[in-house]
């Protein structure tokens, strides 16, 4: 007995409605939450209670919200950098390492020190930002050169370099720049602290304890800048062209090697700036763990944002919420789980953009 209808999968021939990609991303997030809830049930916890706690921990107070923005800041910068690279089909996952290198280079300003510590704050911070950009940029240049001139797979090189950077960092903070043998440098002098809203609490008591710092401005500017570049600049056009069909780009006279280098350097620089922002705005020292997997979460953020830097902003905030809430609640792996599930579902559902499922009635055979 055959079912009265059949399911067929056909290639989509017409244009995708504009709302579809966003709807799919949103749907994926929702389904991820649902599945996580089911898994939580399975372990005997009460998912509703946990999710409510989740949202409270994240969005319940201004202080918590500020924490979210703080966590979102590096995600915005790293995610934006990834948007640039992925748009050109360069799958770099080196944000983590570039972040550490940026943090390291920026810290050198204070640790060496590169300028006297009684210099004006704006000089110190600007120099640190510059060093952060240089550190991340140089670190991005290495896999860039390997890819452009030797055609070495950038996925693996950037991945490996992440761990090299962490170890490099460890060498210095356990050693020369260590604070009495602990795995961190001494706290930076106040001159190297990025201003935060809490600094204004004398005049505006509302801001007391609010950790939001200037780095978020870096992030927003970076996201808007890259968005403008990708959308309306000549370079953005080249990147999009190379990403869509490198052979056509070559045929059209575009210099592919140069673009690979530029993209790797700039995405590295953005991650490096994120590193600087984290050490000057949040922890105020160089230490072993300055990143909560920003480099990897950044990939998910960029992908969910469909490589649009403006969309990276709200998604980073969402993920920031996941990280902040994840700190508080049991079980501790929940934010990982949701992040992983979301991305998994998004890439699985991408197929819906290319194919559609049709359910039709089986025709009766004419006699």
């Amino acid at each position: 007995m055959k079912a009265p209808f059949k399911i067929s999968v056909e290639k989509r021939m017409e244009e995708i409605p504009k709302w579809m990609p966003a709807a799919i991303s949103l749907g994926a997030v929702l389904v991820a939450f649902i599945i996580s809830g089911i898994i939580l049930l399975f372990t005997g916890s009460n998912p509703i209670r946990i999710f409510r706690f989740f949202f409270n921990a994240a969005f319940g107070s201004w202080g918590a919200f500020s924490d979210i923005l703080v966590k979102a800041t590096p995600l915005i910068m790293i995610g934006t950098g990834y948007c640039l690279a992925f748009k050109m089909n360069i799958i770099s996952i080196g944000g983590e390492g570039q972040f550490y290198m940026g943090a390291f280079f920026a810290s050198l300003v204070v640790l060496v020190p590169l300028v006297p510590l009684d210099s004006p704050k704006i000089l110190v911070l600007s120099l640190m930002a510059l060093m952060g950009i240089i550190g991340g940029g140089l670190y991005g240049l290495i896999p860039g050169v390997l890819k452009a001139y030797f055609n070495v797979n950038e996925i693996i090189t950037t991945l490996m370099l992440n761990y090299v950077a962490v170890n490099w960092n460890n060498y210095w903070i356990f050693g020369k720049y260590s604070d009495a043998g602990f795995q961190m440098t001494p706290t930076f002098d106040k001159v190297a602290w990025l201003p935060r809203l809490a600094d204004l609490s004398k005049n505006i008591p509302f801001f007391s304890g609010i950790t939001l710092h200037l780095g978020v401005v870096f992030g927003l500017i970076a996201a808007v800048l890259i968005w403008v570049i990708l959308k309306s600049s000549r370079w953005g056009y080249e990147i999009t062209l190379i990403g869509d069909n490198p052979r056509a780009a070559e045929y059209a006279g575009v210099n592919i090697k140069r673009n690979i280098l530029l993209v790797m350097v700039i995405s590295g620089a953005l991650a490096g700036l994120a590193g600087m922002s984290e050490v000057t705005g949040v922890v105020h020292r160089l230490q072993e763990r300055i990143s909560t997997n920003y480099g990897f979460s950044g990939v998910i953020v960029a992908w969910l944002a469909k490589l649009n830097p403006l969309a990276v902003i709200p998604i980073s905030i969402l993920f920031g919420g996941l990280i902040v809430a994840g700190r508080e609640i049991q079980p501790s792996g929940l934010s990982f789980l949701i992040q992983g599930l979301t991305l998994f579902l998004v890439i699985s559902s991408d197929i819906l953009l290319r194919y559609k499922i049709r359910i039709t009635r089986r025709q009766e055979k004419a006699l």
Partner: protein
Amino acid sequence: MNIEAIIRAGLSTGTILIFAAIGEILAERSGVMNLGLEGVMLVGAMAAFKTSHVTQNAWLGLIAGILAGGILSLAHGLVSIHLQADQTVSGLSLTFLGTGLALVLGEGLTGLNVPTLPNVDIPLLSSIPGIGRIFFSDFNILVYVGYILIPLSWYFIFKTRPGMHLRAVGEKPSAADSLGINVYGTRYLYTFIGGCLAGLAGASISIAISSGWYSNLTTSGQGWIAIALVIFARWNPIPAAMGGYLFGMLRRFTLDLQGPMSILGFRNPFFYDHNLVFFLQMVPFLLTIIALLWGSGAARRKRLGAPTALGVPYVRGERGM
């Protein structure tokens, strides 16, 4: 510096890496790259630990760990093979997924004492003077499993018919397809097997070699080192084994290295600056990059064995125009 202790530590720790690496070799040889090893290993470790705790039987735990790894990897397989999504992104999300699953489902397991797999001596071989003591006595049983797996997997890949088909699928799936070999089926099978071996690696951490559950510190990056090992070993189990034991020794070595003031008559830099060991820790990753660079020459690639179709979804070409 106790050479014997270093070698033994290398053999133990290396076994974990080798299980994961051989599994990944099999998967990548069929054309599927699984970057999520770290997550899969963690799930395997958690499943093994929890099952061992609940059933009070380490062997059941072992089976659970293996199966958990395999099943989780099948998700990656579905997304990569049938849905033809980007394998890098899928692999990364698998890392998160696996880590998250392991942490959530492994809640409350830290610090528990569970039945573990036993340490044994190999009857005759352990009595051989010198070598017997170093290689065949008082190791966890899984280490010996590792000894056997290495030549077995090498023989399988290079000397058997299914191994030949495996290589064909990863190298030139169109040729394999034209001769009637099921490309999709082969890829699913080896993705599953790779996941099972990764689960085995995880289980060997939690209920065998470094037994215990330390939430997400359990695997502490060994999954990533295993991925590097696969490339460095050029998708061949024998160099993978040597590299795995070497990397294992490196970990132990870095501790010991800080002890003596001089090595072989030379001033020991590690004694004077302990932190130089961090550079040693970079070695596996740097070596991989160098291996990749060396292998990038087109002519070399033929000899180096990166499966040509690795990471490329297979679509049967149009018949006709």
